[in-house]
């Protein structure tokens, strides 16, 4: 995660005036893609979701008549996005709160983050159950009807209470890093490689 942050920041701050820097950034992205072996279809899908946001941010530059600058901005942003998504594909969601906690994230934040991630799964599972129950009862109305969403949120909130209480009673503390977690010697090669790549992009540019 730290390596990802370093490399993405390195690519994001690559000087646009240097074509070499952009080429180096593209090479770094390609290497990350090869190393992480992220599923291409999933990567494409996630990248396409971000394109409208990217377009909205680049559009003012384009409207001002700086087409080349807009293209370069968009290209660099896409490289950074693909790199971030490739790294994200290797992250384990279950371990994210404790990993962030071991990197210095305050425990209350880590705990809140863990709750959000768990509830995201609960929302989906509970929604599927409600939809199935409605279908079996022959109820009319789409998946986005008020009744479905109200039921979904009510039952999810109740379930959230039950799950949290059960975990608490069993002594679970998801925000506390497990033994052996945190930065260790096994993380150093990737962190060093990411840092070297980020530095190389900037040295190349100068």
């Amino acid at each position: 995660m730290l390596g990802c942050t370093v490399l993405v920041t390195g690519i994001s701050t690559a000087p646009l005036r240097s074509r070499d820097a952009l080429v180096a950034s593209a090479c770094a992205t390609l290497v990350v893609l090869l190393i992480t072996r992220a599923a291409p279809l999933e990567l494409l899908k996630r990248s396409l979701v971000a394109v409208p946001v990217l377009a909205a941010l680049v559009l003012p530059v384009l409207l001002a008549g700086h087409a080349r600058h807009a293209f370069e901005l968009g290209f660099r942003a896409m490289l950074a996005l693909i790199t971030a998504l490739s790294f994200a594909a290797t992250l384990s969601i279950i371990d994210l709160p404790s990993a962030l906690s071991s990197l210095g994230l305050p425990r209350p934040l880590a705990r809140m983050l863990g709750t959000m991630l768990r509830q995201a799964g609960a929302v989906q599972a509970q929604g599927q159950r409600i939809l199935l129950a409605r279908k079996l009862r022959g109820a009319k109305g789409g998946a986005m009807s008020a009744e479905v969403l109200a039921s979904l949120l009510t039952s999810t909130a109740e379930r959230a209470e039950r799950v949290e209480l059960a975990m608490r009673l069993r002594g679970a503390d998801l925000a506390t890093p497990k033994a052996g977690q945190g930065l260790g010697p096994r993380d150093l090669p990737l962190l060093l490689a990411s840092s070297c790549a980020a530095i190389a992009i900037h040295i190349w540019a100068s």
Partner: protein
Amino acid sequence: MDGIVADPALLLALNASGAGCVGLALQRVQRRPQRSLAWAGTLGAFVLAAQAINVPVGPGVSAHVIGSGLLTLVLGPALSILALACVLMIQALLLGDGGISMLGANVINIAVLPAIAMHLARRCLGPKAGATAVVGTVLGSVLGALSLAWMLAYGAGAPWRVTCLWLVGVQGVAGLVEGVLTLIALGHLARRAPGLLDPDQARLPTLDDAIEAPVPRPGLRWTALGLGLLLAWVPFASGSPDALEVVVQRLQDAP
């Protein structure tokens, strides 16, 4: 968005400012705990889903719902900032939305400024005034857009005037739509559980309460119902709830 704002000094300053704001909010929450973190996390999960809903604000243009207005009114500004910061962290690290290097900037634009705007509107207009939700949300959106426009102009070389007009226009309309939705949700909340709209006075049940006295709590259910109705009023569910789907899919795939 990574790669758009590239000035290293600006990025450093923005991330330090964002971290500072989160630190202050955290300090405030720890000093005066008003709400259960678990409940804030649950509300944050719905905001995570709500931010995948794009509001059409013009031909070919859309903006996503921020959700900070409702969170601020229900949780208070400090806890709202923390919940939104967590949402932004998940989006940046797992979904590639918002950008890792721009996390601090996003915290300022999406969490801090809208929360402050809503808090000010609440102070000036009163917690029960209908205009509070609309004014606070629109003001928050416009402030966030202005801040983003400044960042783009300073850090990406974008022309200030065009950028400002564009972003403020888009976010202003989106804020108005979101403000009306927040107002509808608050209407339901005010009828069902009026105490929830006063973060200083109202007290939601916490996990400690549940351990000590496991009694039914209708307020929680009505809050959830209000949020459900809020989402149900959105007639344009976008084709991108995949932000949530990706998280769920990966949760299921995780060992």
